[in-house]
């Protein structure tokens, strides 16, 4: 039985068609995934027909036979309340902060016109989505829950009525690798009762295993559609191949990395704590007693879930963040404290951060942004030499000279991240600190930035301190890995060996989630 059928869907924004001629259908118990890069129109395609987008849709979208396009808001609202549930990307912000979990579930339940649920009903709902201590959770506010738990609460609220169709818009993108896997498994399991599932994602390999059919979108049009496994194994469209390549799996053959040189950097007993926010005077230990080392030309991945302290540790080592205790040496000589770093030290290590737009001063032109480290770290250069180096750096990150006069606001995320990399490279550092440098970027853009970094690693012999939550990306760039959990390094070693035989439970969970 067909639950949801879309035909010739059109959505326009500002006179331009952002979705044009998209069609698919989902039967009871089936899962269809809409896949594409950002800007492909995948989110709009699933939200606009239900009136959840400011944009108007044309064409046809029928839910259990009833036409949604052009239907009055009251009817759409009834459809949203009773027949379809939604799960969104941002688990941290998508639940109302001042209402307890139980209250929000109750609201969703009653909205479907069902009789008042008992407390046990609501707890059973939470258990169904795999939350432990369900009864206790009903009285908690969302901020008390972790990201993964909140996403489960949101799914529980979405299936409370119970709906015929569940629309999940990038449900796992904001979660780390482990949770991503668990949540997709759970969503997929809900189909057993005949629920139809519409998944929206940029991570083609991840959804390919759970979906029956894939619809690959490119700039608002269907590039390719078909049975999931077949399409994954033999992609026809270029976009499909690019999407698959951009989300590397651990099952892929490992790449060849340049051999590491002599020891470069060593950190011993690094400990960092922060004052606890709020009224109590206490400190939270973010990193405790962490030691690691990096050789010349070697990539070291610092991997862990969110909140594991991996960024804090990397910044403490690079002397760009607070540190309570510990020693850092560079080629055997101690690196001074944050405030005492000389240009000769700063030249050695340069950072690239997660949010490319926020890491460029909005008031500055690109040329000045890239020249800034040269002014301070190579003050003897003439203006002409400086300019030549900036141009060379732009060239190295594959941006042409015309970008020199642009301001950050006019750059795309990928372009901004290339500028940030050019700024980091221009002083000729020996080690690059990449702090989640690709995780805020669109999937295809991130793939190209990883390729750029891999090339730089080969040509420049750069050592990398690569902070990430993605094991597969780490393996593309790094020789060794340090796994962090709750501020402690729980496992450390050559990346191939660790992935092949993870010793610590945290590592095992991460590896299991990544293949």
């Amino acid at each position, binding site marked *: 039985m067909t639950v949801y059928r879309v035909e010739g869907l059109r959505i326009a924004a500002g006179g331009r068609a952002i979705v044009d001629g998209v069609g698919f259908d989902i039967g009871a118990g089936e899962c269809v995934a809409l896949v594409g890069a950002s800007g492909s129109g995948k989110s709009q395609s699933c939200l606009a027909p239900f009136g959840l987008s400011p944009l108007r849709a044309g064409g046809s979208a029928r839910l259990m036979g009833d036409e949604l396009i052009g239907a009055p808001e009251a009817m759409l609202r009834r459809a949203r309340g009773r027949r379809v549930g939604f799960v969104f990307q941002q688990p941290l912000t998508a639940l109302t902060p001042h209402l307890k979990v139980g209250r929000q579930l109750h609201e969703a339940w009653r909205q479907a016109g069902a009789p008042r649920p008992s407390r046990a009903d609501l707890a059973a709902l939470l258990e169904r989505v795999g939350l432990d201590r369900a009864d206790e959770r009903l009285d908690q506010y969302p901020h008390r829950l972790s990201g993964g738990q909140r996403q489960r609460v949101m799914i529980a609220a979405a299936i409370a009525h119970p709906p015929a169709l569940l629309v999940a818009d990038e449900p796992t993108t904001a979660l780390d690798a482990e949770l991503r896997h668990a949540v997709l498994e759970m969503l997929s399991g809900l189909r057993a009762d005949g629920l139809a599932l519409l998944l929206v994602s940029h991570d083609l390999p991840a959804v390919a295993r759970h979906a029956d059919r894939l619809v690959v979108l490119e700039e608002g049009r269907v590039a390719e559609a078909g049975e999931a496994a077949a399409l994954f194994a033999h992609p026809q469209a270029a976009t499909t191949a690019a999407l698959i390549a951009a989300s590397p799996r651990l099952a892929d053959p490992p790449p060849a990395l340049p051999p590491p040189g002599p020891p470069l950097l060593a950190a011993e007993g690094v400990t960092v704590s922060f004052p606890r926010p709020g009224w109590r005077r206490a400190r939270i230990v973010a990193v405790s007693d962490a030691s690691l080392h990096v050789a010349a030309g070697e990539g070291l991945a610092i991997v862990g879930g969110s909140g594991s302290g991996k960024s804090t540790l990397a910044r403490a080592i*690079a002397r*760009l963040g607070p540190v309570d205790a510990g020693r850092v040496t560079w080629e055997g000589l101690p690196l001074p404290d944050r405030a005492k770093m000389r240009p000769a030290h*700063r030249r050695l290590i340069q*950072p690239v951060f997660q*949010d490319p737009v*926020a*890491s*460029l001063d909005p008031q500055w032109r690109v040329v000045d942004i890239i020249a800034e*480290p040269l002014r301070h770290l190579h003050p003897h250069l003439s203006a002409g030499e400086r300019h030549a180096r900036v141009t060379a750096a732009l060239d190295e990150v594959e941006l042409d000279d015309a970008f020199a006069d642009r301001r950050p606001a006019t750059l795309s995320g990928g372009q901004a991240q290339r500028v940030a990399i050019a*700024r980091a490279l221009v002083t000729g550092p020996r080690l690059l600190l990449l702090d989640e440098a690709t995780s805020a970027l669109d999937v295809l853009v991130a793939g190209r930035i990883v390729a750029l970094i891999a090339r730089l690693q080969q040509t420049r012999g750069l050592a990398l301190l690569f902070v990430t939550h993605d094991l597969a990306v780490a393996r593309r760039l790094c020789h060794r890995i340090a796994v962090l959990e709750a501020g402690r390094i729980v496992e450390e070693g050559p990346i191939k060996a660790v992935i092949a035989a993870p010793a610590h439970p945290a590592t095992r969970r991460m590896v299991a989630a990544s293949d």
Partner: protein
Amino acid sequence: MRRLPALLIALILLAALLLPPMLPWRYDMIDWAAVRAPPLSPGHLLGTDSVGRDLLARALVGTRVTLAAAGWIGGRVDEAMMRVVDALYALPFMFVVILLMVLFGRSILLVFLGIGAVEWLTMARVVRGQVLGLRERPFVIAAEAAGAPGRTIVIRHLLPNLAGVAIAYLLLTIPQVVMIESFLSFLGLGVQEPLTSLGILVKEGADDMDVAPYALLLPGGLLVTILVCLTILGERLRDRFAA
């Protein structure tokens, strides 16, 4: 319609600066022949007050004093004392200002100083919040990695990104300052007779309103127009930079 506030303010400013010397009556001259003259009387376009002083001249000079207060305060922000601000913010500072006025005599300089003491707090709060927000931004950490000294980071990265918001709030401070000056003058604690300000004129008008309502309506209307226009202009600027 959008330009109206700016236009009105410019008009009022020009009139306050240029017109008084051209009028037949100075703001402190008494026309014994025309006490409490209604508006449009011969020689007194807007009438006179209870002792026969020309209301138009007084309103214009009052506007001058009122706006001068605003200009003088402009931008006296002391960042070094930022830390104290949060503690001080809770206090009824208006009362300390009133105390100052009463106890040390009503000098116009002291009025300005008193107002500065109050408005400085709000300004400092806004700027501090902005600085704290900016300091956590990755581009500031990137500048540190680029070897920029703390001083350079403040001058080249923090201040330029702060300027827009600071200017907008400064503009929003002006109506506050105008309001406080008038408030003090209304209580008889601001500038001293025969010098006048809009607050004093409103007070005199209020004392006399049962017989001469126009003496209240004119300065009151002028003050409200100035305040509304300045507020609208400041909010527009703030919204532009906050976006």
